[in-house]
C-alpha cells in the first residue's frame, strides 16, 4: 500500500471511530439526562441537583465544568509550541482554587440558595442587585460560551480530518463547522432543559472521568517512551522545538522581550502580570463554578468537593505538562502548526503518534486519535452545558422571579421560565457563535475570567466580609468592574489593530495590553468601595444574619 493511501484509510477509520465514540458518549449522557429529568421535581432539583451530590462527585463535576477545551487542547498546545509559558498559564488556573476554597465556597453554600446573586443580594435591595448580578452572569457566560462553541467548530474539521478541498457527508469544512456549532448547541440545550442541574452534573462527571483517563493513558505512554525520565523528555522537547533551552524557560509566549523596543517589552511583561492576576482571581467569580457549590448537602461537603477539585484539576495540569512537552518532542512544532496555527491539535496529534508507536501501527494511531478527539468534544459539551445552566438559572431565579415578579413567582413557574431561558440563551449562543466563527475569539475565555475577577469577585468578597457594604456598593462593583474590563478589551490589540485581532483590518485600539485585569480588577474593588461610602444605606441586622448563617450553616438551604 502506498503511504498516502494508508494515511487516507487511517483518517477514515479514525473518523468513523471518533464519530462512533462521540455518539456513544451522547447516547449515555442523553440516557442519564432523561433519567435525571424523572428525578427532577422541585426547583432545588432543577437548580441544585437536589443538593444530593457527594464531595467526590461534585469535585469531579467541578473538574468537568472547569477543564474546558481551552485547558485541555489549549494548554497542551501552548506548551507544545511555546514550551514553559503554557505551564505558567495552567498554574494560574490551579492556584485560583485557593481563593474559592478559603474565601468563597463554604460561605456561599451556607447563605445562598441557587445563584451567585443570592449572596450578593442577601442584605441589599433585591431588584437592582439581582439585575446587576444577572447581567454580569449572562455576560460572563455568553463570552465563555462563544469561545467554547467557536472552538468546537474550529476543531471539528481538524479532529475529523476534513481538508479544505474535501467533503464529509457532503459538507465542506465551513459547513461542517456551522453544523458542529449547531449540534453542540442543540445538545447542551437538551442537557440543561431536560436534565437540569442533575443531568448536567452527571454529564460533567462522565466527561471528567473520560478526560482524566484519556490524558492518563497518554501521559503513561509519553513517560514510558522516555523511560520515566522527565529530564530526557524535556531535553528532547527543547531540541525538537529548535529553540533549545529557551523552550524550557519563560518568555517565548508571555512577557516577550523585543530587543531595542523597551515600550513593547514593558507592555508585554505587564500583560503577563495582568493575565496572571485575572486567572487567579477570576475562578471564584465565575457563576457556573459558584452554582456548583449548591449541589451538595452542606458547606462541609462543599469544602470537601473543592479539595477533590483541586486534586483532580492539579493532577490534570501536571498531565498537560507531559502532554505538551510530549507533543513538542514526538510530533514537533512544525507538524502541529501545519494543522492548526494556535496549536489546539497538539494533544490529538500526540495521541495519533503514540498510538502508531505503541498500540499497533496506523490502526492504533487512528484508535487513540479517535478516543482523544471524542474526549475533546465531550469536554466542550460538559462546559457549555454548565454555562448555559448557570446563566439560565440566573435569568429565571434572579431576573424573572425577583425583579419581574417581585418574589411572587411560584416554584413551578420559576423552573418553567428557567427551562425557556436555557433554550433562549442556547439559541442566542448558537447564533452569535455562527456569526463569530470566522473571527479570532480565543481571547473571550481570558475576558470572561477578567470580568469575573473585576466585577463579581469584589462584590462577593465585600458582601461576605464587609459589614458596611450596601446596595450602591454592589452595583458600583459589578457594573464598574464589568464595564472597565469590557471597555479596555474592546480598545485593546485583541479586538483591533493587530494581525491576530478579532478585526485585524481595523485599528481603534489605544489600550496597550491584551488582558485588562491589572487595571480592571483594582477598578472593580475601588468602585465597590466608592459606591459603598457615598451611600448612607447599611443594614447591620441583615449583615448579622448573613454572617452568622455563612459561618455556622444555620438556616442553610
Amino acid at each position, binding site marked *: 500500500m502506498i503511504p498516502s493511501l494508508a494515511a487516507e484509510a487511517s483518517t477514515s477509520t479514525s473518523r468513523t471511530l471518533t464519530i462512533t465514540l462521540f455518539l456513544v458518549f451522547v447516547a449515555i449522557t442523553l440516557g442519564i439526562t432523561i433519567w435525571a429529568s424523572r428525578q427532577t421535581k422541585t426547583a432545588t432539583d432543577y437548580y441544585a441537583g437536589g*443538593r444530593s451530590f457527594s464531595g467526590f462527585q461534585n469535585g469531579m463535576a467541578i473538574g468537568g465544568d472547569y477543564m474546558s477545551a481551552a485547558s485541555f487542547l489549549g494548554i497542551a498546545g501552548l506548551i507544545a509550541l511555546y514550551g*514553559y509559558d503554557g*505551564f*505558567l498559564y495552567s*498554574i*494560574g488556573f*490551579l*492556584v485560583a*482554587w*485557593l*481563593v474559592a*476554597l*478559603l*474565601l468563597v465556597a463554604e460561605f456561599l453554600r451556607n447563605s445562598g*440558595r441557587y445563584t451567585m446573586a*443570592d449572596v450578593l443580594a*442577601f442584605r441589599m435591595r*433585591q431588584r437592582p442587585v439581582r439585575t446587576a448580578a444577572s447581567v454580569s452572569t449572562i455576560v460572563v457566560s455568553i463570552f465563555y460560551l462563544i469561545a467554547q462553541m467557536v472552538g468546537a467548530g474550529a476543531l471539528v474539521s481538524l479532529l475529523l480530518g476534513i481538508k479544505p478541498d474535501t467533503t464529509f457527508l457532503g459538507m465542506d469544512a465551513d459547513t461542517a463547522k456551522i453544523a458542529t456549532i449547531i449540534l453542540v448547541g442543540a445538545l447542551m440545550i437538551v442537557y440543561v432543559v431536560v436534565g437540569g442541574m442533575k443531568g448536567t452534573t452527571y454529564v460533567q462527571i462522565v466527561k471528567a472521568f473520560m478526560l482524566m483517563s484519556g490524558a492518563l493513558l497518554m501521559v503513561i505512554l509519553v513517560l514510558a517512551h522516555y523511560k520515566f525520565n*522527565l*529530564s*530526557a523528555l*524535556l*531535553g528532547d522537547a*527543547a531540541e525538537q522545538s529548535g529553540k533549545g*533551552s529557551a523552550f*524550557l*524557560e*519563560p*518568555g517565548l509566549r*508571555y*512577557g516577550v522581550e523585543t530587543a531595542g523596543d523597551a515600550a513593547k517589552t514593558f507592555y508585554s*511583561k505587564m500583560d*503577563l*502580570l495582568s493575565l*496572571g492576576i485575572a486567572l*487567579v482571581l477570576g475562578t471564584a467569580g465565575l457563576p457556573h463554578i459558584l452554582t456548583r457549590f449548591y449541589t451538595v*448537602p*452542606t458547606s462541609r461537603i462543599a*469544602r*470537601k468537593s473543592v*479539595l477533590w477539585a*483541586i486534586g483532580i484539576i*492539579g493532577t490534570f495540569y*501536571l498531565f498537560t505538562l507531559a502532554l505538551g512537552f510530549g507533543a513538542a518532542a514526538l510530533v514537533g512544532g512544525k507538524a502541529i502548526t501545519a494543522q492548526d496555527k494556535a496549536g489546539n491539535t497538539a494533544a490529538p496529534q500526540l495521541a495519533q503518534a503514540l498510538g502508531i508507536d505503541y498500540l499497533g501501527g496506523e490502526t492504533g494511531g487512528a484508535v487513540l486519535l479517535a478516543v482523544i478527539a471524542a474526549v475533546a468534544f465531550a469536554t466542550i459539551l460538559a462546559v457549555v452545558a454548565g454555562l448555559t445552566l448557570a446563566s439560565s438559572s440566573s435569568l429565571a431565579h434572579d431576573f424573572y422571579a*425577583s425583579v419581574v415578579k417581585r*418574589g411572587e413567582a411560584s416554584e413551578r413557574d420559576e423552573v418553567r421560565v428557567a427551562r425557556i431561558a436555557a433554550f433562549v440563551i442556547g439559541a442566542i449562543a448558537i447564533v452569535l457563535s455562527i456569526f463569530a466563527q470566522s473571527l479570532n475569539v480565543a481571547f473571550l475565555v481570558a475576558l470572561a475570567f477578567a470580568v469575573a475577577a473585576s466585577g463579581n469577585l469584589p462584590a462577593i468578597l465585600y458582601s461576605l*466580609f464587609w459589614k458596611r457594604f450596601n446596595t450602591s456598593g454592589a452595583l458600583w462593583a459589578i457594573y464598574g468592574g464589568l464595564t472597565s474590563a469590557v471597555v479596555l478589551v474592546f480598545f485593546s490589540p485583541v479586538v483591533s489593530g493587530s494581525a491576530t485581532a478579532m478585526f485585524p483590518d481595523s485599528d481603534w485600539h489605544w489600550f496597550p495590553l491584551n488582558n485588562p485585569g491589572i487595571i480592571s480588577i483594582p477598578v472593580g474593588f475601588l468602585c465597590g468601595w466608592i459606591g459603598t461610602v457615598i451611600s448612607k444605606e447599611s443594614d*447591620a*441586622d441583615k449583615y*448579622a*444574619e448573613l*454572617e*452568622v*448563617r455563612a*459561618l*455556622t*450553616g*444555620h*438556616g442553610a*438551604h
Partner: protein
Amino acid sequence: MTTEATTTEKYLAVQQSDEFAGLRRKLRNFVFPMTVAFFLWYALYVLLSAYARGFMAVKLVGNINIALLLGLLQFVSTFTIAWYYSRYAARELDPIADKIGSELDTAAGVTRPGAATTPDDPEPEAAK
C-alpha cells in the same frame, strides 16, 4: 414570618457573642493571612517569570531548571494549603460552628445537618 423581629435580635445576639467573635477571629486570622501569603507567593513566581529570566533559567538537575521547580512548587503549595486549611477547619472551626449552629437550630426547631427543607424559614421570600 411573624418571628421576624425576634429572629433579627437572635442573629444580632449571636453575632455579638464572645463565642461567635472567637469563631470569626479564628477563621479570619487563618484565611486572610493565608490568602495574602499564597497570592504573594504566586505573584513572586509570575514576577520572576517576567523579570528574572536568568535566574529562572539556571539548571538544577539535567534539564530541570529553577523555572520548572518553582512552577511545580506552586502545585505543592496549593495542595498543601488546601490540605492544611481543611485540617485547621475541621479542628478549630467546625466544632465552634456546629455548637453555635445547633443552638440556633434547636431554638428555631430544625434539625441538622443539611437543613434543606427548613420548615420555618426566617427569611422573607424576596430575599432568597
